[in-house]
C-alpha cells in the first residue's frame, strides 16, 4: 500500500515543502496489526508514536482487579503514544492494542523533535498538536470530575461519531468511566427524549 493518510495529514496541516515531508514519511515503517495484537504492553518502553492509517486502536490500563480503563480510542487519522514512557524513557503503565485489523505508521519519537529543530513551521505545528492534546486531556479530566454520564456521552459522540458502531458498549462505558448499565440508561433516555420531541 502506497497511500499514506499521514502524508495527507501533514501536507494539509503544515506549511512545509511537500518534498521534505515525503522524504521523512518514506522512511517510516508501516505495519499491519491484527485485531487483538499489541503495539505496547505494560512494562515495555514505548519507542514510537503510532499514527493510525486504517483501523482502530485502544490505549488503556488494567487495574489491580483486572478491570480495563480506556484512556483513548485511536481510529483513522489519530496519533497514539505513551508520552511518559517515550519521552521520559520509563516502562509503560499502559497497553496499546488493535481493536480492528489495522495499518499503523510507526513514527520514531525523535523524528518530530528533529523535524522541529530544522523546520520552523513544523515546530509551530507540532506545538499546536501538543496544545490541542493538552486541551483534550484537560477537558476529559474536567468531564470525569464534574460531568453527568449524559454529558460525558454527548462529548464522546462529538469526538468519535462512528465508534458506537465499531466497539462494544462495554468499552465505551470504560472510556466514559461509567458502568455499561449507566451507558445503556443514558442512551435509552436520549432515545426517549428524541421520540417525545418528534
Amino acid at each position, binding site marked *: 500500500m502506497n497511500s499514506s493518510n499521514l502524508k495527507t495529514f501533514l501536507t494539509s496541516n503544515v506549511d512545509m515543502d511537500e518534498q521534505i515531508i515525503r522524504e521523512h514519511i518514506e522512511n517510516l515503517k508501516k505495519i499491519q496489526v491484527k485485531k487483538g495484537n499489541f503495539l505496547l504492553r505494560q512494562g515495555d518502553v514505548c519507542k514510537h508514536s503510532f499514527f493510525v492509517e486504517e483501523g482502530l486502536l485502544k490505549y488503556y490500563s488494567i487495574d489491580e482487579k483486572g478491570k480495563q480503563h480506556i484512556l483513548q480510542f485511536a481510529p483513522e487519522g489519530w496519533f497514539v503514544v505513551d508520552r511518559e514512557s517515550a519521552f521520559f524513557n520509563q516502562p509503560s503503565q499502559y497497553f496499546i492494542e488493535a481493536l480492528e485489523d489495522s495499518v499503523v505508521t510507526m513514527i520514531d519519537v525523535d523524528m518530530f523533535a528533529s523535524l522541529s529543530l530544522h523546520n520552523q513551521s513544523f515546530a509551530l505545528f507540532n506545538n499546536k498538536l501538543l496544545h490541542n492534546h493538552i486541551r483534550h486531556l484537560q477537558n476529559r479530566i474536567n468531564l470525569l470530575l464534574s460531568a453527568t454520564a449524559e454529558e460525558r456521552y454527548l462529548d464522546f*459522540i462529538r469526538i468519535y*461519531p*462512528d465508534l*458506537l*458502531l*465499531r466497539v462494544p*458498549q462495554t468499552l465505551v462505558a470504560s472510556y466514559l468511566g461509567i458502568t455499561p448499565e449507566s451507558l*445503556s440508561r443514558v*442512551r*435509552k433516555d*436520549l*432515545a*426517549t*427524549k*428524541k*421520540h417525545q420531541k418528534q
Partner: protein
Amino acid sequence: MAIKNVVSVMAPPEPHFVGDGFRVHNFIPQGSRTGMYRMDPFIMLDYNSAHYFEPSATPRGVGVHPHRGFETVTIAYKGSVAHHDSSGGGGVIGEGDVQWMTAASGVLHKEYHEEQFSKEGGWFQMVQLWVNLPARDKMSAPKYQSITKDQIPRVALPDGHGEVAMIAGAYMDSKGAADTFTPVHLYNAFLHKGGRADFSFPVSYNTALLVVEGSIVINDAETVTTDHFVLFGNAGEDFHITASEDAVVLIMSGEPIKENIVAHGPFVMNNQQEILQAFDDYNQGKFGYLEDQV
C-alpha cells in the same frame, strides 16, 4: 429476443463471520470486485452457505445495529432466525420464509439464531440481500414484510419440471409476494433433475443468480455448481437454466436506480453529508432504543 449471456461465474469467496451467527461469503460488492454499482439496485449479498452449527445455550447472532437508506431481505433456506427491532416488532424467519425489512429512515435491530434451533444445533443456510432505495424513499417510514413460505406464490413449470416461487416482481404474469419501491424480480426456482426454466428481463436490468442447491447449466453452455454466483451481461433479455440434478436457484433482476451511492457500515445514502447525519442521528438516539441482550 436476444440471449442474455453469462459474464462471470464466481466461486464462493472466503467466508467471514457477521457477529458469531452468520458465516457468510460476500458476493456483492466484494466478491464481484465491482462495488455497489454493478448490480444496482442490489448493493450487498451475503450468502451463508449450508453450515452446521453445534448446539449452543446462548443463541449466536448479531447484536443491536442500525440500518438506514435501503432494505434488507433475508431468505432462509435452512435453520431459523429470530429478530427484534426498535419499533417493538419481532418474529422468527423459518425455513422457506422471507423477511423484507425496509430500514428506510432507520431502525435498530438484532438477529439471532432462534432459541430452539440454537439449543439443538443444525444446518443453517441463508441469504441476506440489500436492496437500495431511491433518494425519494430513503427517509420514508421503516416497515416490515414478513412473508412466510406459504404466502409466496408459486408458478408450476411445464411438464412437471419444477416450480418458481416469486418473492418479488412477477414471473409468467403472476405477481410475487413483496411490494418493492423500484422494479425488482426475486425468485427461487426449484427444479427437478432435467427440469428447465426460462427467464426474460429487460436489457437495462442488472441480473444475477445464485445456485443454492444442486447444479445447473445456463443457456445449454455454462455449468454452475452449488454455492456459485453468476453475473449476467446487460445485452440480451432471455436465458434459461436446466437442472443437472435437483436444484434450488435464487434469481434476481432489477432496474438500476442510477443514483450516487455513498455507503458507510450500515448506512447507504446518496452523499457524505447524509452519512454524517445518519451517524449523528444514531448517536443521538433518533433510531430509538433496543436492549442488546437477547
